[in-house]
């Protein structure tokens, strides 16, 4: 079941104006750098992007914002991005802020074939407005629906030609959840190997969820907050 495509341009070939995308990553950690670059080059517009963050001004999803390609962002935290804030305050950009665990679980629900989940996050706050609330064992929970995304674009550490994926450290974050949740899932990996080379015991995302895979190039892996301690 060979899922390999030549590169990012081919992987995103049928992402068109108005598409709903999931993009993996937490901050700039574990983001699909190659596919973002190709989406910027292609110039598709009116995108809805589901991603925990919106990048920084000059990297990650921030590049798509600069290029005015995003109609709506669905995220949990969008600091560290001046252009984002400008577009939000001027009304150019629609933004839905949702709790981070809710974001993760709405991806998970989609990948597990469940239409919705109940979570206590946001009960009693403005996040609950317009949502069905149900009390279980004395505690309020909100009904939150599974996401419905046209494409999930994820970044993994290693992958094989069958689409099996392995993630590295905290670059895992939302990637395996989104990989399960897209109608079409595109995976870019740092190292692509023939099927059979990865240990089946250690696969994070089985290839059944992945439709296209390629080995990415020129990863920058920018660090947002470089923090160090002194050697004594």
């Amino acid at each position, binding site marked *: 079941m060979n899922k390999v495509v030549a590169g990012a341009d081919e992987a995103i070939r049928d992402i068109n104006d108005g598409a709903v995308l999931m993009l993996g990553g*937490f*901050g*700039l*950690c*574990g983001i699909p750098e190659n596919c973002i670059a190709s989406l910027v080059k292609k110039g598709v517009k009116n995108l809805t992007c589901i991603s*925990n963050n919106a990048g920084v001004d000059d990297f990650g999803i921030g590049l798509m914002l600069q290029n005015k390609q995003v109609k709506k962002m669905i*995220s*949990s*935290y*969008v*600091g560290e991005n001046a252009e984002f*804030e400008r577009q*939000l*305050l001027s009304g150019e950009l629609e*933004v839905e*802020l949702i*709790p*981070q*665990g*809710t*974001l*993760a*679980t709405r*991806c*998970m629900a989609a990948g597990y074939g469940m239409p919705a989940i109940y*979570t*206590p*996050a*946001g*009960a*009693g*706050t*403005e*996040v609950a407005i317009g949502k069905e609330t149900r009390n279980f064992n004395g505690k309020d929970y909100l009904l939150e629906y599974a996401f419905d995304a046209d494409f999930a674009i994820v970044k993994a*550490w290693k992958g094989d030609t069958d689409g099996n994926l392995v*993630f*590295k*450290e*905290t*670059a*895992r*974050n*939302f*990637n*395996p*959840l989104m990989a399960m949740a897209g109608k079409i899932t595109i995976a870019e990996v740092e190292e692509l190997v023939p099927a059979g080379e990865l240990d089946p015991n250690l696969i*994070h995302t089985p290839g059944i969820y992945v439709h296209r895979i390629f080995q990415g190039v020129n990863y920058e*892996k*920018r*660090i*947002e*907050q*470089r*923090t*160090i*301690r*002194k*050697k004594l």
Partner: protein
Amino acid sequence: MALTKEQIAQRIAKELKDGFYVNLGIGIPTLVANYIPKGINVVLQSENGLLGMGPFPFEGEEDPDLINAGKQTITTVPGSAFFDSAMSFGMIRAGKVDLTVLGAMEVSEQGDIANWKIPGKMVKGMGGAMDLVASAKNIIVAMMHTNPKGESKLLPGCMLPLTGVNCVKKVVSDLAVLDITPQGFKLLERAPGISVEEIRSKTAGRLLVEGEIPEMKFEV
């Protein structure tokens, strides 16, 4: 003297118990990791997918794939584990994390907390805070007692949009340690040299004072 941010963190660290799994928020809560008492073993959870967070790396050893929820480069300790964001909030929701420490803009006498939005001014988002406060068994808030204008941040009811309802158990401010009780903020300890009267004047919510209130002590 009001406590420094480091002293607030140092005081909160005394609440840690051996074997705790702990989630530390961004800002003052992060500093708590520097004051874990000797003989107490705790495991730090980072909600972007790590149990067993270690200190910042030495220069030259930073790993872009290894960060905490504040996007800072970090390390792991022996016995650590990585997982995805759904499992991370799953363990939070299921009450596996023993203690959550986070900052706040306002706390109410019922234990409501506001820390994610200032309408018209700040629109950064709630991140994981709403999930944490909705599910954590034990929430300690680290905060300044008043805002820069000198107005109390410990209120009868929060003015800002809420992050969570009736969830905070304890507040450690630069002036005092207080428990949230059905009768309001119960004063437990004073910062060195800070009088009960000063704390009373800077607490807008109901303040319960019973008997002598001891001063906090810090080993130098």
